[in-house]
């Protein structure tokens, strides 16, 4: 099954998110990730959704979403040229013996250390799915104590 990224513009009003999320639940679709935030227009929010499903399912999802009074526009940007980012905060075990190696790794991935504890570091990383996965894999051997990541946000590239 293919993962689809949908950019959904909705009116920035109370209850819109629960309407959208509820629609997915009751129609039996799975949301892989969901990010919502205001756009350049304060009255409009953008929901970036990652949904798994074949073409038929995605078409149904889009049509059902489009019927909602507060949904303005839906775009399936899966096959577009996009810039996509997600963010990761990861607390990794880092005794004195490992610190240097972790810091070098983070240099390669261009991540930032945002907190230093006695036996741990918190690392902040942004990137696309592949990069985030790679960072997590490379830190695994040191021992991951805590991990939190956002869903994906995406934007279609400008015309060249």
């Amino acid at each position, binding site marked *: 099954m293919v993962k689809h990224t949908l950019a959904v513009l909705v009116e920035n009003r109370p209850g819109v998110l629960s309407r959208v999320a509820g*629609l997915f639940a009751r129609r039996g679709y799975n949301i892989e990730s969901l990010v919502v935030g205001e756009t350049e227009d304060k009255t409009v929010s953008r929901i970036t959704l990652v949904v798994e499903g074949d073409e038929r399912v995605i078409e149904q999802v889009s049509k059902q979403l489009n019927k909602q*009074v507060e949904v*303005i526009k839906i775009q399936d940007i899966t096959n577009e040229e996009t810039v996509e980012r997600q963010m990761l905060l990861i607390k990794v075990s880092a005794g004195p013996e490992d610190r240097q190696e972790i810091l070098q790794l983070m240099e390669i991935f261009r991540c930032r250390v945002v907190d230093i504890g006695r036996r741990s570091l918190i690392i902040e990383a942004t990137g696309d799915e592949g990069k985030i996965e790679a960072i997590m894999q490379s830190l695994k051997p040191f021992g991951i104590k805590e991990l939190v990541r956002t869903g994906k946000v995406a934007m279609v590239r400008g015309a060249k």
Partner: protein
Amino acid sequence: MNGAEYIVKFLEKKGVDLVFGYPGGAVLFLYDVLGRSSIQHILTRHEQGAIHAADGYARVTGKTGVCLATSGPGATNLVTGIANAYLDSVPILVLTGQVGVESIGRDSFQEADIVGITMPITKHNYLIKEIDALPEVLEEAWKVAREGRPGPVLIDIPKNVFTGTVDFPEVLSSTRKQKIPFKNGLNKQLGRIVGVLKKAQRPLLFAGGGVVSAGAEEELAEFVKYSGIPVVTSLMGKGVIPEKEGGSLGMIGMHGQPVANLALSACDVLIALGTRFSDRVTGNPQHFLTDTCIIHVDIDPAELFKNVHIDLPVVSDAKKFLQMLLLALREAKVSFTLNSWWEQIKAWAQEYPLAFTSGSLLKPQEVIREVARQAEDEPIVVTDVGQHQMFVAQHYPVQGKRSFVTSGGLGTMGFGLPAAMGAAFGRPGETVILFTGDGGLQMTAQELAVIAQYQLPVKVFMLNNSCLGMVRQWQELFFNGHYAQSVFTSGPDYLKLAEAYGVKAWQISKPEEAKALVSKALQHPGPVVVECIVDPEENVLPMVPPGGKPNEMLGRWHGETHISRLG
């Protein structure tokens, strides 16, 4: 002007002259104003009665039904009726009271999150937190309930909004963002559709409830006259084409007419108009008419490709589509020669009639046919849900426009009586015939009080088989006759029950009594309840078992006494 006055004035401006409801603490201010207005309020005996009545009213008039209830239990009692209207696409404006804005979220007395509860079963719903939003919300809700595919819309109004002050604006401007309209593709598809129809050998038109919503009865009749294409309907489409003259082959699906289902299985082009291909029509959607070219026309784009594979999708109102198609066919001078197709259909109708055998016990089909035979002036026919509903669909030819009312999608037992009441209010002076069962009647029997109060011409034919017939039938066929909880071993005396409410009642217990008592009931000026003691073992046949193909019908074929499967 305060909020309550504003709401009443708004309803008056929209031409609302009748609402159904039930008062309570949170809506006292609204009722105070409503009671002094020109709008008639029908006090039902349960909120469920009010919402079903608004539903029946909307279905027979084509107008938007309006229903009021208080907060908490008043609002939650509407839930079944809202879901019912949602699944059958009936426009209803539901206004519920809510605890004051300051009290929301504190589990206050009679507080329920009705907006949260009804989100999946309304077209849209609103909680008004500031009175300033009232004008726009009312205006938009009214529009949303009617436009496109109709449906119920709920507005939850806190107590203090009724008392707050608001101006009646001269002109209302919406703060909504403009949506990009959906391309309907009608013009592009018309050429293709004409091409497909030109080559069609066995075309069939399948009309659903969308044809009723669109008011496309005349256009459909004209199309049928021009093309000679046979018509089948869904339960929701029943009556969209007068059934007495044989204009329609009847209903298709699980309990469809044999000839209609056989034609459906054999057609090479299917024009499906305003229908959502429910599982009661398709059986297993994966195997539904895989070799047929399906043209699917619906006003709701989300219905296209939802359940079955289709070849030519069109987003359009049924009325507009039929007008455009007729025009295109006439321009292209397309003529149809369907003689051999019709011969085949007539042969099926002869070989596989809708059969039942009379006996010493009264059969439900017999009563229904007797009522149909005697009833004049195209009465409104209403049903509850279950076996009797399917018998009516099969045996009662419906004639008039918007004259068949039934709970199609949700299959709500208890819908019948309050819906019949609403229908009687919607079309004063017309006879309303309700077929119901002993199960369904007991769910909302309290509305007999309202029917008696207003002396509504509602003729209730209650087919009493002392059991939940459809449940019993499934248990007989699929659970080896284990009749778990489907048989009523005790019941009220229905004649006394009706008379206690002030409604005249008779009982038909033998087949030979039917003729005289049906006549008596129909001629009696006010409401009547006729209890018909029917054969409890009568099954609705034919029956396409769940997941089967349309032609795979269980029935008694060729005069056999046992049940066998066609196809």
